[in-house]
């Protein structure tokens, strides 16, 4: 009896882990994919009908003018046999998930291993692969993130220790974030180009512009987190400002800093992509805009997914460093 119970509970534990951790994730992904596949049909129906008409199929209604004014769902129900082709059409408005996955595979693994310019045949990453373009974006993201974080921390220190900065800097920092970055990015690039800075530095500047703000806000809060009693204690030791900064304020701000850094790295990636839109010299932003110029929606979506994967990886990396750091600082596990 007890042996059977133990066996059951061992199976139960694995089953529970599957039910509690894996099932919800799979369920959400399955739901999203289902919605996506359903949405693909009306999105592509007009192009699919035109294509089918050209190939001589009988479609309802037969005239192009009638189809132009008809509702998408109505067209779908009138031509139920064309649902299949809407998931595999060449120039889809909304490509189906498997088409995006195929493009992602083709523009990474296939391009690098078999392409003429791929790393296998040429020794360097192909400028037609998402690995190359992801790398271009990643370089700008990391550089901008480092610049923005350092700037944010310095601003926070200034705000906490200098009353004039406290009163003057924060309003400007907030205003800076209310301007849409898409409007500002081309101007930043033009202004930096005129002083001889372009390419990587210009993109990193936009990344830094987006990432300094969360770091500054988080660090101001963190540096001010020690309570009055903690400050009084240091006063009883006659500690000077630099001692109270290094021994109390800075270590107390570390958890706040990491929370901000996670937001900052994601913002930094967005900044780098936006910075690549007007320049068109490589990067995921260039791929997205290029794809939209030439109606290559699969290319846009593949680049989007590449950006999402990179963002997830970067945020995970910051989180990993956070866990290591806080554990080294004696945090309760």
């Amino acid at each position: 009896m007890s042996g059977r119970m133990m066996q059951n509970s061992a199976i139960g534990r694995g089953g529970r882990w599957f039910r509690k951790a894996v099932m919800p994730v799979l369920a959400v992904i399955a739901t999203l994919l289902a919605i996506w596949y359903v949405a693909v049909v009306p999105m592509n129906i007009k192009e699919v009908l035109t294509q089918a008409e050209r190939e001589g199929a009988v479609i309802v209604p037969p005239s192009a003018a009638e189809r132009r004014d008809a509702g998408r769902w109505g067209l779908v129900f009138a031509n139920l046999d064309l649902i299949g082709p809407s998931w595999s059409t060449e120039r889809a408005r909304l490509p189906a998930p498997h088409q995006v996955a195929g493009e992602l595979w083709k523009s990474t693994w296939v391009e690098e291993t078999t392409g003429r310019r791929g790393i296998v045949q040429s020794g360097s990453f192909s400028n037609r692969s998402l690995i190359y373009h992801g790398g271009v974006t990643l370089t700008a993201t990391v550089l901008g993130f480092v610049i923005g974080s350092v700037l944010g921390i310095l601003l926070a220190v200034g705000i906490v220790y200098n009353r004039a900065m406290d009163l003057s800097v924060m309003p400007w920092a907030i205003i800076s974030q209310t301007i849409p970055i898409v409007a500002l990015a081309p101007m930043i690039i033009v202004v930096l180009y005129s002083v001889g800075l372009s390419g990587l530095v210009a993109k990193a500047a936009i990344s830094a512009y987006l990432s300094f703000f969360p770091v500054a806000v988080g660090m101001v809060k963190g540096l001010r987190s020690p309570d009055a009693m903690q400050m009084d204690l240091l006063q009883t030791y006659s500690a000077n400002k630099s001692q109270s900064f290094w021994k109390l304020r800075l270590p107390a701000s570390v958890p706040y800093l990491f929370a901000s850094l996670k937001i900052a790295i994601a913002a930094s990636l967005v900044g780098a992509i936006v910075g690549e839109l007007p320049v068109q010299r490589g990067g995921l932003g260039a791929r997205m805009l290029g794809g939209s110029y030439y109606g290559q929606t699969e290319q846009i979506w593949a680049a989007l997914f590449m950006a999402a994967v990179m963002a997830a990886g970067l945020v995970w990396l910051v989180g990993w460093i956070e866990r290591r750091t806080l554990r080294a600082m004696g945090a309760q596990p």
Partner: protein
Amino acid sequence: MDGNNVPSSSTDHSVQTPVIIAENLSLTFQTGDGPVHALKDVNLTVDKGDFVSFIGPSGCGKTTFLRTIAALEAPTDGVLTVNGMVPDEARKARAYGYVFQAAGLYPWRTIEGNIRLPLEIMGFSRADIENRVRNVLELVELAGFKKKYPWQLSGGMQQRASIARALAFDADLLLMDEPFGALDEIVRDRLNEELLSLWARTQKTIAFVTHSIPEAVYLSTKIVVMSPRPGRITDVIESPLPKDRGLDIRDTPEFIAIAHRVREGLRAGHGDEV
């Protein structure tokens, strides 16, 4: 005797040396609702080796008085000297160690690291720091816990660590602001006993703020009863109890008599408000 209290143990205790002298001390806070008289005409002398308790209801200025001694507040009138100096100089001369109501240990430092904090700030040598940390940890019986982080210790142990931190740099005066106020009664009894034995071994002068009558009577050689609005001293009781006392002294008639006098003093101070 531990090596870290040579200066205090070498002095002759038969001669009364004043450590704290307050003469007509007043402190008024200016607030939006008008001035608040936190302290008014306070006169008090604390001698070397005394254990003085300040007791009174909230708002009577007992904590403010302690903070004024520590130069965390500045008096608006009157004279206050600590070791013959104005409080601010005394603070810079490391005249006192201060224990707050909360242990206030840094969560990112081990117990050892927390005790090292004042020593690092005051610029002690590395070897000296190691020595002192070891000595005070033994003094508060936490030697086995030096590598632990604060969250791994009970509230009582954390408060002992914070006392060790205040003792580490050899101040002769220990200022304690309701250090056991947040602890349960069983732990508090035990820490009271330990504090008395620590006081006997180190010969420190201790100023202790509390709102517990038994705690004040049990610990003190001198009990200062205070009352609010304005914060002032209503009674100073020199305790006839022997310096060497156990917890069971709380059942003796002498103890009960002093406790009664403290209670009367508190009631008189409150006037018609109670």
